[in-house]
């Protein structure tokens, strides 16, 4: 559900929604969600001074019932 929510939030704000892919990893340190986007959209998901990335993390933590979620952004080429 977390990855689906994040995928939706990100697809809505990028120019290449079809290139967005989301994977969740559960490790000892809790949940990490990796979002891969088209390199051209990297600026979009990070935002000015990281504003958009912060907003995405804030919403994801709320959706996760206040438990912190690690959200990593990478471009599709890195995957």
């Amino acid at each position, binding site marked *: 559900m977390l990855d689906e929510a994040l995928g*939706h939030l990100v697809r809505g704000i990028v*120019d290449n929604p079809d290139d967005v892919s989301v994977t969740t990893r559960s490790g000892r340190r809790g949940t990490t969600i990796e979002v891969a986007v088209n390199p051209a959209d990297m600026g979009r998901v990070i935002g000015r001074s990281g504003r958009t990335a912060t*907003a995405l993390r804030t919403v994801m933590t*709320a959706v996760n019932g206040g438990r912190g979620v690690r959200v990593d952004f990478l471009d599709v080429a890195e995957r």
Partner: protein
Amino acid sequence: MNETTNPAEDAAAEPVTEEATETADEKADEKAGPTLEEEGDVAADYLEALLDIIDADGDIDIDVEGERALVSVIEVNPGELSHLVGDDGQVLSALQELTRLAVARETGERSRLMVDIAGFRAEQRTKLQEAAQQAIAEAQRTAAPVSMRPMNPFERKVVHDVVAEAGLVSESEGEEPERRVVIRIS
């Protein structure tokens, strides 16, 4: 006179002022921009899909308030959406930011749309209006300027409106984030 602005400028100061400085002629030359209703529709779709995914109930209302679209998510089950508001509306602000980006992606223009969830902004506004009324009463009683707490541009606009309606004078003074409204009897 850099330190003070009139209420009208204050209101426009929020996210972007580009639009406000455009002349009517320039506007007429361009193709018509997105309407506030269109902005509201895009925002409503974005938020509604999120609610579906997280399996939360909410009724969505689209309104136009002043020059902005307002999309309100109304709680069906009391308290169910409080985590989407967050402490001091922090999560709500994040969601509004993302929603504005989603609208801008669709329309190609920056959006000043407001999002409300579970009546949070409406309640904040009522509290602000009450605080403004108290400050007005104090200004009238003491005939001295009354300075409000520091506020963001949107909050200051709410106060300016109440003061204007009461026939008093208000100005914003100081620099963000310490900028505050000062109320005078004339």
